[in-house]
């Protein structure tokens, strides 16, 4: 083999596919997990876990400071997590709890609802990236990621040759990958 022999183009296709694959492995995992989570947004909240409980306590009396202290004590709230209050109406005295939670009390009847909010660990961050909550420079990085994913898809088609390549068994998988979503689209348009 001569020293100056050029490598075949397929060699570079495989190099691209391999190295882009390494680079994107973590992000594709994050995007995929977030995608499944957000896909089922009708069934659950993909970013927050919200725990809601209803109870009845003794009616609140006195001025606003007194009502706040009574509500905290009777609802067994951690005072350090209560960051504000608001009178939303005659029947709604609201305490704001760290992280987006709240305790809502009807001062006259003592009927109360406490909502505690917690970010879903890791999944919250995956959604922040996937749904571009960050904006700014991340938008550009996400665009670059999309281009790399496109490159990954195209290089994957041409990596192998022969019976394992696109001309061989690959064409059936590629055809299935196009016809399945196409069938869903056709069914969707026909149903409208």
């Amino acid at each position, binding site marked *: 083999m001569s020293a100056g022999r050029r490598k075949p183009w397929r060699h570079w296709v495989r190099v691209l596919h391999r*190295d882009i694959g390494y680079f994107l492995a973590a992000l594709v995992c994050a995007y995929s997990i977030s995608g499944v989570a957000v896909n089922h947004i009708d069934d659950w909240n993909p970013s927050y876990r919200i725990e809601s409980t209803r109870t009845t306590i003794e009616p609140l009396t006195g001025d606003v400071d007194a009502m706040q202290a009574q509500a905290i004590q009777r609802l067994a709230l951690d005072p350090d997590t209560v960051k*504000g209050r608001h009178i939303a109406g005659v029947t709604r005295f609201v305490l704001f709890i760290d992280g987006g939670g709240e305790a809502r009390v009807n001062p006259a009847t003592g009927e109360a609802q406490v909502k505690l909010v917690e970010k879903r660990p890791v999944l919250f961050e995956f959604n922040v990236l996937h749904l571009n909550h960050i904006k700014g420079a991340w*938008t550009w990085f996400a665009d670059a990621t999309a281009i790399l994913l496109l490159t990954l898809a195209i290089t994957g088609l041409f990596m192998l040759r022969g019976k394992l390549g696109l001309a061989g068994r690959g064409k059936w998988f590629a055809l299935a990958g196009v016809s399945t979503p196409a069938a869903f689209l056709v069914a969707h348009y026909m149903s409208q």
Partner: protein
Amino acid sequence: MLMQLLNITPVFRMGTVAIGATLALSACDEAKKPAAAAHHEPAVQKVMANPEKAPVANDMKTAKAGAPAAEKAPKKAAELSGKVYGAGVTAPESVNIGDLKSRVDEFVGKRVRVEGLVADVCPMRGCWFNMAGEKPGESLRFKVRDGVMVFPMSAKGKYAVAEGVVRKIPLNLEQTKRVLAHEAEEKGEQFDPTTVTEAITLVRLDGVGAVIRDNK
């Protein structure tokens, strides 16, 4: 070592160029971003589809007196401390939420600045938040399309200064039930449509920008 690595595979070179280009583009994006503006808006503008082009409502007091608006340099968004969302806030003065809602027809289609305690935030997509007025029960919703701005639930209980175009949406009874049902679903609450007997009119701000901070 780095040079050897770069020579081993062209992908590392491409990756470095891609990342460098991304950072350069982002720098361009930051440079092009309009500075929190000390610009002066014309007195009247045609309302266009883009809410950023809507006319700015004058301060209630001066509008009522019929006197020209006071010559005040608009506060830059940077002078309002807090986290900036969207285009931030450029209008110099706020309209009272109670006044706005009681005289909504004077403000419809106009771009206004309001401020208040963040009483509630959309728990699903963070696409709206409610600001409380000065009187109990008064509130105004700041709304954007999904993803344009995303407000975290931790913003609840904080203080917002927000700017947007006032929109009035009269609903019929059926629409009212659907809207209230959707809100209850978002909050994970039960909703009984038979309790809704009157149609409502939604008044909200189609959001342009906001600044949210811990305290007033």
